[in-house]
């Protein structure tokens, strides 16, 4: 196991509690003997693009459901947009747009009718039918479904359903978007469109909370990352801080042997024409000067930075449900 509650790594500064859109304390959910979410302290700052990353079966969706008042926590506190959840979730939800575990719609109705029904089911404000129609058209336009016909949702591709789900999440003009795997089933073009849309919304002030098992998606979109593993939050930090320098330098040279001779014990790793070197005082400029003075030709010299992938792999276990089950079986006497 990855340790106790205190092991969540947080390199950056504590976030100002006044500016938190989502915060949880000791959030725990048990289903019988199985603990799906275990003592999670989550902090999502206003205006952030927060990536909630974890392998399948790590408790992401349960967490998202608890934030939205769909699932009740066994223990712990949740505050969303300044109000306690689930006790006052009804006041919070009108300001949230959500997509949980894939889109869903009535298959025999058109996408437009589905949205109109979902819209009409909402809070009592804006009962005016005309504004409502406009709103439905507007969100359809935003997700690139402005031209959809009257085909029933049954006939939609997964990508179209995904866009429809996103459109539904935008109906409220939300302050906070909670999206679970929003680019599932989209082609690369669609993924780019959704990403641009989220960036645009975020620039206009919407906080985006995005859960995904896809590292690349989070790396491409998010400013902050929370990594969850087997129900525990093992890392929560700004993405830039996570991908910080490792304290080593990467040297590329056509003459690695000469470089290795010159650098001696400072070489940590060596692959073909690349050497990883412990940083000496003075950083890259000093090292470059040192090598050149000793006649070692250089192709390149950069700081080594951690990739999000390295960090996640080092912090999380070998991953999802199957391997966990296998491990558990193996551990049995």
């Amino acid at each position, binding site marked *: 196991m990855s340790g106790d509650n205190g092991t969540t790594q947080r390199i950056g500064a504590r976030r100002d509690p006044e500016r938190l859109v989502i915060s949880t304390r000791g959030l725990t959910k048990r289903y019988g003997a199985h603990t799906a979410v275990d003592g999670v302290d989550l902090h999502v700052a206003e205006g952030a693009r927060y990536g909630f990353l974890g392998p399948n079966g790590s408790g992401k969706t349960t967490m998202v459901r608890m934030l939205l008042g769909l699932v009740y926590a066994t223990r712990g506190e949740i505050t969303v947009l300044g109000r306690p959840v689930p006790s006052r979730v009804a006041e919070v939800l009108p300001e949230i747009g959500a997509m949980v575990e894939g889109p869903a719609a*009535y298959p025999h109705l058109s996408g437009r009718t589905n949205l109109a029904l979902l819209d009409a089911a909402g809070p009592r404000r804006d009962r005016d039918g005309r504004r409502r129609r406009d709103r439905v058209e507007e969100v359809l336009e935003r997700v690139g479904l402005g031209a959809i016909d009257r085909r029933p949702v049954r006939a939609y591709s997964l990508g179209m359903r995904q866009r429809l789900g996103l459109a539904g999440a935008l109906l409220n003009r939300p302050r906070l978007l909670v999206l679970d795997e929003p680019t599932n089933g989209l082609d690369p073009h669609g993924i780019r469109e959704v990403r641009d849309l989220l960036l645009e919304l975020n620039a206009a002030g919407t906080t985006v909370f995005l859960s995904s098992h896809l590292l690349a998606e989070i790396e491409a979109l998010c400013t902050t990352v929370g990594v969850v593993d087997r129900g525990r939050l093992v890392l929560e930090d700004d993405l830039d801080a996570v991908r910080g320098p490792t304290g080593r330098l990467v040297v590329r040279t056509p003459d690695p042997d000469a470089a290795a001779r010159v650098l001696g014990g400072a070489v940590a790793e060596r692959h073909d024409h690349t050497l990883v070197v412990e940083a000496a005082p003075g950083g890259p400029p000093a090292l470059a000067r040192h090598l050149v003075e000793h006649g070692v030709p250089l192709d390149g010299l950069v700081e080594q930075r951690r990739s999000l992938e390295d960090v996640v792999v080092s912090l999380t276990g070998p991953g999802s449900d199957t391997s966990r089950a296998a491990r558990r079986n193996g551990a049995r006497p």
Partner: protein
Amino acid sequence: MIGVELVKLVRRPRTWVAVGLLCLLPTVVAVFLATTRISPPPGQGAAFLSAVLQSGSLYPAAALALVLPLFLPIAVAVVAGDAVAGESSQGTLRYLLVRPVRRTSLLVAKLVAVVVFVVGSVVAVAGSSYVVGVSLFGAGDPVAVVRALPEVTGSSDDAVAGTGPAAPAGGRGQVGSSDAASGGQAGATRPGAGTGDGTVVADDQAARERAQASVSSLSGEALSPADLAARLLGAMGYVTVSMLGVAAIALFLSTVTASSLGATLGALAALVTSQVLVSLDAAAAVTPYLPTRYWLAWVDFFRDPIFLRDITAGLWLQAGYVVVLMLAAWANFATKDVTS
């Protein structure tokens, strides 16, 4: 939210298929009756069928009798069982709840939609069968069937039950009022006379003779159209209320399981169990509390004068089921983890 649920109900093809099938069965029966002119002898076949050849305007009552035992409960159980479980398995439940729709309002809206479906189905069956009946059999004089129903005027329960032709009055008088009540029920299940099912086998022959004698001896004044309409409306209302009990069972189960089919079949299983126990003398202790116990009391609207005892008991019973089950559904649904 209620409006949204009604739109969903109306725009769902299944709703119309169900209503169409409900109307189809009485129509098929009417066509056979009209082409052959062979009516079941009084006391056999569904209630009222023997009389409709004389008066098509009674056909709505016959149609209700045809759909009540099986078709109508199935349709109601399908719609009510799907109400929450269907949204849940479809995934739309979570999107409604985060829209947000409060769980209580969702449940109330679902209940209202189911009630509308029940009312609509009963009205559709009665309306279509009235048209079919009058056009195939003529408007006729609807008096006969009313006269053919067993007289049920009496002061005490025993006396009341005893007057029903199907009641095993003489043989089992000592068993007491609950048995007498079930005797009355048997009389109601076979208006126009009680051909026996399990409960009244011994008296079957005698009952039929008595019933036929009563039919042939009857003559009476014609019911005025207004009177007939009022009685029909009463019967339709009573059938609706009876079906609300079914709806409450299915709706409750629908909040328990994520499978519409499970909820529907569960409700139907409860009804079958109830039907079996109602006809089982050994279960007499619980019979008055079974949901199907007073289902057929709507026939009493066609007695002269209208016989209210079983109707009242049935209304109270269904109200009890609806209140208890809806509270249970609410308690379950409001505190439930929505994980679908």
